[in-house]
């Protein structure tokens, strides 16, 4: 035998799925929403997406170089963070906001807490909330930049559909579903997001428990406390409008900041639904979903603690 045999403890085979293939699938699943955003809002949206991704990847690489950590940009997690953050920016945001957001997401939220797997909040959402607090005016200006390619329905003041609904205007449900309306770059098209969600579900990347529990709880909450009774038009507008779809399918399902246990995921989804309902219906700010998700991120250790599964043969029925 010319070559020495390898020895290791079993198992000796591994599944083909690895961290980078998962992240790549998430990126592919986000593409419909991203492409629709670019179609809807024009070249500036494309610029914002590219700038945010580049900032996130560069921040991760530079930080890891400085502190002599193993370079992890190849796992594509920074790309996912960048893309998600960009999809959460208003289409007219200046490029430097994207840069600040990207640096904050990767450096402060992710790397300072230990890098991939250690952050306790979703980096993209934490950065969005940071930007909202720091640059409230620019972050809530949803007017469409010049050069838009899509035939976007331009309401009077550049208000998002949810804001319009709150002030009593009616919105077109079909536009809400397809997404030729105002909002952040990636959140407007429920259709594009659902296509992405289908990819994630079919490839086994996400667990249906979180988004389904989330959307169901929110629906029940909205029907009870929304003040519209059993009005399904209102409910569908609430579901398709704002960041709910993007949040439920792509951000609440972030592995690192959601519970690892199956039961915990249902509890987490229910908490998300309740808080989103509270923030949206009773709160003043437009970013109910973002705040609900990062708030529930903080409850994850607690949820996990109380939903640890009973070991086989220990909790179930006994012979």
């Amino acid at each position, binding site marked *: 035998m010319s070559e020495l045999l390898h020895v290791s403890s079993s198992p000796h085979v591994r599944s083909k799925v690895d961290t980078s293939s998962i992240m790549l699938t998430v990126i592919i699943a986000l593409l419909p929403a991203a492409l629709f955003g670019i179609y809807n809002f024009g070249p500036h949206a494309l610029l914002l997406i590219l700038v945010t991704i580049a900032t996130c990847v560069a921040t991760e690489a530079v930080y890891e170089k400085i502190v002599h950590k193993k370079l992890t940009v190849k796992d594509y997690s920074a790309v996912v963070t960048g893309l998600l953050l960009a999809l959460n920016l208003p289409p007219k945001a200046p490029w430097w906001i994207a840069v600040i957001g990207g640096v904050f997401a990767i450096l402060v939220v992710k790397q300072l807490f230990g890098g991939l797997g250690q952050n306790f909040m979703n980096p993209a959402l934490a950065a969005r909330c940071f930007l909202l607090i720091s640059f409230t005016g620019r972050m809530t200006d949803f007017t469409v930049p010049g050069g838009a390619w899509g035939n976007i329905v331009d309401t009077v003041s550049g208000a998002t559909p949810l804001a319009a609904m709150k002030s009593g205007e009616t919105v077109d449900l079909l536009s809400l579903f397809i997404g030729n309306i105002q909002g952040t770059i990636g959140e407007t098209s429920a259709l594009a997001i659902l296509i992405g969600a289908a990819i994630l579900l079919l490839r086994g990347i996400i667990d249906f428990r979180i988004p389904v529990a989330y959307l169901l709880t929110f629906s029940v909450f909205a029907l009870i406390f929304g003040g519209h009774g059993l009005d399904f038009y209102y409910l569908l507008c609430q579901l398709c409008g704002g960041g709910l779809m993007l949040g439920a399918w792509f951000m609440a399902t972030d592995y690192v900041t959601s519970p*690892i246990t199956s039961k915990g995921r249902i509890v987490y989804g229910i908490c998300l639904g309740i808080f989103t309902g509270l923030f949206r219906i009773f709160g003043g700010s437009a970013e109910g979903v973002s705040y609900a998700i990062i708030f529930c991120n903080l409850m994850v250790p607690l949820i996990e603690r109380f939903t640890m599964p009973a070991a086989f043969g220990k909790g179930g029925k006994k012979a």
Partner: protein
Amino acid sequence: MAFLTFRGGVHPYDGKELSKEKPVRELLPGKELIYPLSQHIGAPAKPIVAKGDHVLAGQKIAEMGGFVSANIHASVSGTVKEIKKVRNNVGAMVDAIVVENDEKYETVGFQKADSLEALSKEEILERIKEGGVVGMGGAGFPTHVKLAPKEPEKIEYVLVNGAECEPYLTSDYRRMLEQPEWIIGGLKCILKLFDNAKGYICIEDNKPDCIAKISEMVKNEPKIEVQTLKTKYPQGAERCLIYAVSGREINSSMLPADAGCVVDNIDTVCAIYRAVMAGEPVMDRIVTVTGEAVADPCNLKAKTGTSFAELLEAAGGLKQPAKKIISGGPMMGFAMFDYHVPVVKTSSAMLCMTEDDISEKEPTACINCGRCVNACPARLVPSRLATYSEHGQAELFEKHHGMECVECGCCSFACPAKRPLTQSMRSMRKMVMANRRKPK
């Protein structure tokens, strides 16, 4: 039809097509056969022959060294050359009897049983004990101990484990196709020991030919039934199998008998049949020699004591360099650094892999994806338990039921961060068990 199964598990590439269609060939051993005295769980056997003694095939050369132990028999006729320490298939140095083969294959006279009806329960157990039968699926637990639970009347299920969920292995598959009458005969011997039990031959649905064949053969047997299991690893793990068939759960502090079950592997049941009815001790077993590196993957009937190197030769040798050679399957087998080791009663396969998945990818950070949790048949949270193991936190490990781990390997298989989850838990489990054995 909904097939019986359990919660969790994984679907590794099964590789069975390499050797599935190859009928079992008998392999005659070379000049020297090595019989390790420890081919089973429990005390090593004590040699009862000395250097220079002439032995016959089937002659007992070492006898039980305790209550939980098993006899060992020569598989060829020849001369005892020496008793020395040798390396076994899991890499340990063990005492072994070396017999020089005279190639005459003279056997001792085996005492056939006239009929099963004529044998008493005690006689059946005695014959199994005398024949050195142990769990041939891999664990090697002495069968006469397993078949003598405290309350035999409470046993309701006798499960014959034909799941063969471990990838690449086809020895049980060939056995079911080629000697189904041995399996049924062996099961009848076991059923005779347990008055209130029914026998179930449990087969995964990827072996429809075996299911059809055996179902046809047992259709007039009121106490024997074939159960179809869903193809999923680790369907053949004892606890998973019991749960799938009986719906009962056992944990690490229980025996299958506590749930009214007895589980025996296909080859074990065949060995029981031969020991009880023909009076033949365990002298051979079917070994699958397979893997992408092997020129001609095959199923061999190999005498115990034959060197793995001879098996490989019989399979045409390596057609391309092997990176890893495993005794057993890829999920729970042992990687060997030297394959000049003897076939023992529990050797089910020799797997030669051209790729080593493990050394190719470095472990990265856990992303909390929960794949290990979904895969774990013991319903644990492997990612946390592995962290406790790495940090040496034995108390936390035990508190979160780490000792319920069956080391099936599903978590490590599923982990996208390529963390050595099973491996970490295995070392912690060893440590905890060693500490428990320490006198307080």
